[in-house]
């Protein structure tokens, strides 16, 4: 119990600034307090520090603009995508001996991979926005993003109305195995990687920070406008897309694949950068 509570203390201390972390951990060591009391003390300090960060508007903007809406939308979209992918993959596997099905498979694979890539990129951008624009409040905003994502699954209209087309013939275990794998690969992993990258760049030079902030906000605003216009035209029953919607869709598509470009460019830059002595020595 003691070692568990001390491990929890160390984990919580990670949420403090490096200097404060060292001072607090030193005070606790010196005072010889029990693990439980130390845990309560550090928890109180972390909560006070986190509460203080929410006195300005920026974390609230990230919460309202990124964490909740994008988490919830991604929950809805990825539930549908994972569900369809798992169902179709299992159907193809079951009927693989049928030549017509085999012939149809490349087209399905292409469409599915593009959908996975698109959702992965949006997940990465959401994670990046969280990490980059609210680096110090990322524990709370990240947890709320995860909760909104979960709510998107649980409060899914298909699930609530019972209209999802899960076929029992697929089998419970393979279906949910595939469903969760797609979800983890397409949403959870890119989101976590995006948060990590965002946190890494949060301490960059002001010029780069401003440029990246503008790019992230621009892409997210375009997503919102495109989604809003799409819903508006669907609700009003206008089936012909106005030209502005098509133009926005093209721009959003370019913005959506921004992480791919960014990752390739940063990988090339890393390869070209002269390596330091410590790096060469493998340190």
């Amino acid at each position, binding site marked *: 119990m003691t070692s568990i509570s001390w491990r929890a203390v160390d984990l919580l201390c990670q949420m403090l600034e490096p200097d*404060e972390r*060292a001072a607090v951990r030193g005070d606790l060591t010196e005072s010889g307090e029990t693990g439980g009391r130390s845990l309560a003390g550090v928890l109180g300090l972390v909560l006070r520090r986190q509460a203080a960060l929410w006195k300005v508007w920026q974390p609230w903007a990230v919460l309202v603009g990124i964490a909740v809406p994008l988490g919830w939308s991604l929950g809805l979209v990825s539930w549908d995508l994972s569900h369809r992918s798992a169902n179709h993959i299992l159907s193809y596997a079951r009927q693989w001996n049928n030549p017509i099905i085999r012939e149809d498979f490349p087209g399905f694979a292409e469409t599915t991979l593009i959908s996975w890539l698109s959702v992965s990129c949006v997940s990465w951008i959401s994670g990046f926005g969280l990490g980059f624009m609210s680096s110090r409040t990322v524990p709370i905003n990240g947890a709320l993003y995860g909760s909104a994502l979960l709510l998107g699954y649980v409060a899914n209209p298909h699930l609530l109305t019972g209209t999802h087309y899960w076929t029992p013939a697929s089998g419970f275990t393979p279906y949910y195995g595939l469903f969760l794998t797609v979800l983890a690969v397409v949403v959870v992993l890119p989101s976590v990687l995006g948060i990590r990258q965002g946190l890494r760049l949060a301490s960059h030079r002001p010029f780069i920070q401003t440029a990246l902030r503008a790019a992230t906000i621009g892409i997210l605003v375009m997503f919102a406008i495109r989604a809003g216009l799409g819903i508006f035209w669907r609700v009003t029953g206008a089936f012909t897309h106005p030209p502005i919607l098509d133009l926005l869709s093209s721009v959003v598509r370019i913005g959506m694949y921004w992480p791919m470009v960014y990752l390739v460019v940063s990988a090339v830059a890393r390869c070209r950068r002269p390596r330091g002595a410590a790096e060469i020595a493998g340190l």
Partner: protein
Amino acid sequence: MLTAATRLGDDAYGGAIRQEIEDATGSRCSIGALYTTLDRLEAKGFVKTWMGDPTPQRGGRPKRIVRVTSSGARAAKDFYNAVTRVTRGVPWEAHRVGERI
């Protein structure tokens, strides 16, 4: 906190101030209350803090050293005078421990 830091003088740092407060008041002082109050006092210019050298008793971790500034000492004195003034004549003022009992 200003009183504890002043009393400790050169030995004033986070853990020692906390101990001093607990000894004087007889109640617990949480680490959260200590460090957030220190930050507020530092923001007001009443104390100055910096990181000291690491010591073996603290597992090789440094202390957050605290010094009361002259404006901090003045603020503490003003506060003490105000409390003394406004409590003059009230029953608990007349029966302070060690006085007139």
